[in-house]
């Protein structure tokens, strides 16, 4: 870590300088009145199919994903590949559900998922639950992006202990905060183009060059212990890893498009056609993610963890350092700089979108609803800009002073929490049969139960469920949202039996269609 890789650092700084300029210049791109929230916070809903592809790809497939998924493959093996079926099944969901959401949000000027829930069910407390869940689930996610940035900064040899070691991260953070404040969603949209191109170049180069260096795929996979190469088959007593793998994929897929940053990315599309086309185009990133997951096995076969030059970095960052170490070992310095810039810039894009999404939520669904109903467009947007700074500052403080482990644990809980908004948002797009207070009760039941189980399980994602003596371990988010749905249905029936009238629906069926 003491050894600074000057060539890599120079390439990294040049690319970072370029995207900094791009971030500020983006304010003038497809110019709009940045004093309006949908202009600052949704890019004026002006992004066509191609820009949406770059933006949402850069948004969903985050730097942390590109570090953590191969790290999981490196450490745990086959289980890490659940990311592939997960990112396959999100697209049928996107294709069927999202055009409806896009339409109704466009029609009514909704900027957040909570805006929609409030309009649909006329219950501001349910909307508040969706809002708070969104913000709380997003915060640790932003922190993890900064963790991804820390890892590559460490890989360049300019990280290290103490205040001086944290300066590069703080500097990158200031750049991020400044261009997000001034350009809004246009900044990450423009930067995502650079980031995505860099990450494709890096991944394809890695998948071609490294196996040649290591003597072919057969040799790489021969180095992986059989127990890590495949999932352990079910026994008579439990469905074991099979169920964990499948429920992780399904539960994660249900959660993904409920995250505020996913909504922000997709609602910024200029048409429902752009959303639908992207359901067929975005899987290219899933393919990329699969390739990157394989890098974990490459790193394992290359034996990077046993190399003395990486010992200090592995001690600081754990298995998250496996891919950076593999790049340093396999590539010439200038390409290491490019690859690290891809990951570093890849951290800024989602961090910017997440902070904008959280700011939109706070402004629209807390500030406006509970504190300042008469806020002008300009006041609303100014508030969102300040909140975006505050949210990022919180994430930075978290990363600097709290052990990384807590950010990971909170992000895991975030997945359990965000999926609890599934009934209100997704069922709400199709029906108003559900009572809004019943949805709130279901949300509460799922959140409390899911949190309790996750904490009891020592912050692992698995609920060790046993039914009739047969072990059915599975992803806590999926199991807890099933409880949520059951409670919602029963409570709705109870409210109906009591003759409770529902509030007025702010939408009509035609709003959901083209």
């Amino acid at each position, binding site marked *: 870590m003491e050894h600074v890789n000057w060539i890599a650092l120079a390439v990294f700084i040049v690319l970072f300088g370029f995207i900094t300029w791009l971030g500020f210049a983006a304010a003038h791109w497809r110019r709009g009145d940045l004093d309006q929230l949908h202009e600052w916070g949704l890019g004026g809903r002006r992004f066509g199919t191609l820009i949406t592809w770059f933006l949402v790809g850069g948004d969903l497939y985050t730097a942390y994903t590109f570090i953590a998924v191969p790290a999981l493959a490196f450490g745990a093996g086959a289980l890490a590949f659940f990311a*592939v079926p997960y*990112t*396959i099944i999100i697209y049928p969901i996107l*294709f069927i559900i999202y055009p409806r959401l896009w339409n109704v949000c466009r029609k009514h000027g909704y900027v957040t998922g909570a805006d929609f829930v409030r309009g649909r069910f006329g219950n501001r407390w349910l909307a508040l639950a969706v809002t708070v869940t969104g913000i709380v689930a997003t915060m640790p996610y932003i922190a993890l992006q900064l963790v991804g940035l820390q890892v590559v900064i460490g890989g360049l040899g300019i990280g290290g202990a103490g205040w001086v070691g944290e300066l590069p991260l703080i500097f990158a953070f200031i750049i991020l905060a400044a261009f997000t404040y001034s350009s809004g969603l246009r900044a990450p949209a423009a930067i995502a183009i650079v980031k995505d191109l860099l990450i494709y170049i890096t991944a394809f180069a890695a998948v071609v060059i490294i196996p040649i260096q290591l003597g072919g795929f057969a040799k790489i996979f021969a180095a992986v212990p059989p127990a890590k190469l495949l*999932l352990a088959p079910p026994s008579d007593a439990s469905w074991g890893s099979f169920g964990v793998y499948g429920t992780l994929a399904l539960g994660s897929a249900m959660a993904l498009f409920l995250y505020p940053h996913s909504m922000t990315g997709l609602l910024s599309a200029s048409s429902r056609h752009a959303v639908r086309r992207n359901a067929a185009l975005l899987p*290219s990133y899933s393919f990329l993610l*699969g390739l990157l997951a394989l890098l974990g096995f490459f790193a394992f076969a290359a034996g990077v963890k046993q190399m003395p030059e990486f010992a200090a970095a592995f001690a600081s960052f754990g298995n998250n350092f496996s891919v950076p170490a593999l790049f340093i070992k396999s590539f010439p310095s200038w390409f290491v700089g490019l690859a690290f810039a891809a990951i570093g810039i890849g951290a800024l894009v989602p961090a910017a979108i997440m902070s904008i999404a959280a700011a939109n939520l706070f402004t629209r669904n807390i500030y406006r609803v509970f504190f300042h109903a008469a806020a002008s467009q300009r006041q609303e947007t100014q508030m969102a800009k300040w909140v975006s700074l505050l949210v990022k500052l919180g994430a930075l403080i978290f990363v600097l002073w709290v052990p990384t482990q807590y950010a990971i644990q909170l992000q895991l809980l975030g997945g359990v929490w965000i999926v609890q908004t599934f009934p209100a948002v997704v069922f709400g797009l199709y029906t108003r049969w559900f009572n809004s207070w019943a949805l709130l009760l279901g949300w509460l039941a799922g959140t409390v139960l899911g949190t309790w189980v996750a904490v009891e399980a020592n912050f692992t994602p698995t609920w060790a469920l046993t039914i009739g003596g047969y072990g059915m371990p599975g992803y806590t988010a999926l199991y807890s949202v099933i409880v949520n749905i059951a409670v919602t249905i029963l409570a709705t029936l109870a409210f109906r039996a009591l003759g409770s009238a529902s509030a007025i629906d702010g939408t009509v069926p035609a709003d959901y*269609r*083209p």
Partner: protein
Amino acid sequence: MDGNEERAWSPWYLLLLIQFIPSLWVPFYNSAEPRLAGIPFFYWFQMALVLVSAAVTAVVYFATETSRNR
């Protein structure tokens, strides 16, 4: 009820939902053989499924898109 417009539901969407089965039914692909260029089945099958699913989604897109709303 929508006339010619793109519908809220179309039988083509069943083709999308079918993707869930091979993706989530783990016993189907949890094996090392047959390998492809040295890559175990578990890995190359799921990667191939990404491409097949994207192609299926594209087919459904063209089948359900109507020219009216461009």
